[in-house]
């Protein structure tokens, strides 16, 4: 029996044949309903476009203050980094590190890896060690938590709005757009397209 076109469900281990690649579709396991494969048409173009947009938004979101807090004449502005630095200075380096990793380091590494993989693929080249690099990006995904951070911002605003004047900054809108862009990039990334490009010895 050839293993070509066969796939084992990652949640119940059922062996099955993948459908012929044709446009966008979602293949589910008939036994446990797990998503086996999300095929996306033009995945390389779409992922690349959204990743490029993501890099720009990431730079803006982390360079400008996202909230200002004003009591009488005193104003405090904050970027994501200042919050992380303040936590570190309060001796809470564990939380500081956790926030740094989940909202800055991991999303940034994922964006850079997607650039590293999809720019060459777009021009029909295969980057050096693509399989290993792309595997790292896949394993990191559970630790990228930008969308949760946005909920955190909203809760903080509502909490503080009675105490003082809260002024949303430029970076707040970039954060919102960045989260939508990252989600769209993930939804359009068809990892099988990447794996099909890997040359290996059977």
């Amino acid at each position, binding site marked *: *029996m050839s*293993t070509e076109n*066969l*796939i*084992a469900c*990652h*949640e*119940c*281990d*059922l*062996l*099955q*044949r993948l459908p012929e690649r044709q446009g966008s579709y979602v293949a589910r396991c*008939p*036994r*446990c*309903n797990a998503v086996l494969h999300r095929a996306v048409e033009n995945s390389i173009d779409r992922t690349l476009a959204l990743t490029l947009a993501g890099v720009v938004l990431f730079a803006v979101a982390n360079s400008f203050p996202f*909230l200002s*807090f004003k*009591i009488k004449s*005193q104003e*405090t502005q*904050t970027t994501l980094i*200042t*919050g*992380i630095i*303040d*936590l570190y200075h*309060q001796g*809470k380096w564990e*939380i500081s590190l*956790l*926030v740094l990793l*989940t*909202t800055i380091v991991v999303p940034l590494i994922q964006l850079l890896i997607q650039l590293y993989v999809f720019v060459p693929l777009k021009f029909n080249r295969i980057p050096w060690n693509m*399989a*290993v690099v*792309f*595997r790292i990006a*896949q394993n990191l995904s*559970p*630790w990228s*938590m930008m969308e*949760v*951070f946005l*909920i*955190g*911002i909203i*809760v*903080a605003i*509502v*909490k*503080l709005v009675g*105490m*003082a004047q809260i002024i949303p900054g430029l970076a707040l809108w970039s954060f919102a757009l960045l989260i939508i862009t990252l989600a769209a990039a993930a939804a359009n990334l068809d*990892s099988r397209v990447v*794996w099909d490009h*890997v040359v290996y*010895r*059977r």
Partner: protein
Amino acid sequence: MTAATMTSADAGLLGCHSCGLLTRARSGQHAELLCPRCGAALHKRKPNSLARTWAFVIAAFICYIPANLLPMTVVTSLGKAQSDTIMSGVIYFFQHGQWPIGLVILIASVVVPLTKLFILIYLLISVQRKSQWRPAERTRLYRITEAIGRWSMTDIYVVTIMVALVHVGNLAIIEAGTGAIFFGAVVVLTIIAAMTFDPREIWDNMAPIT
């Protein structure tokens, strides 16, 4: 026998966790087998999954106690310090008419982590007792634990933002409390616990497919 009636373990194949490639399992080989396509280590099932998941679940439960007893935030204003734990914060918001916020914190910091831990314990026990009861529904429960865990981070982010924004001279300063460290540990441990659990173990207890 067609492919649609057997598992990859029955067929002597190992599915790669990263790229999905199926590789023939060779018997009598002691060295760790690597996926020829992406280089990830290949295993029939996640190694030691039950013991590891139990360990992370128990560790998370232990950390959840100080996470609730110790303060998440310490607000110092005009020389007076006030500590708030997760529950005292939630109660404060409910009493002051800001119930939507109280509800968000209650769900993210209490409901989500506890639901996740109890589901994992149930799945672990059901696998150990070789239960054959509703495997598809139990797999769906597992998918829920995988999806909801990250949302517990909400309160950690709220504390980070408050700490950064509120230091108005000597008038008011917000500091993160020790409880926040334990709560962060709970979130990380429950996420790892869900990762180490292997839902295929649920199906291994089912009668062979005919």
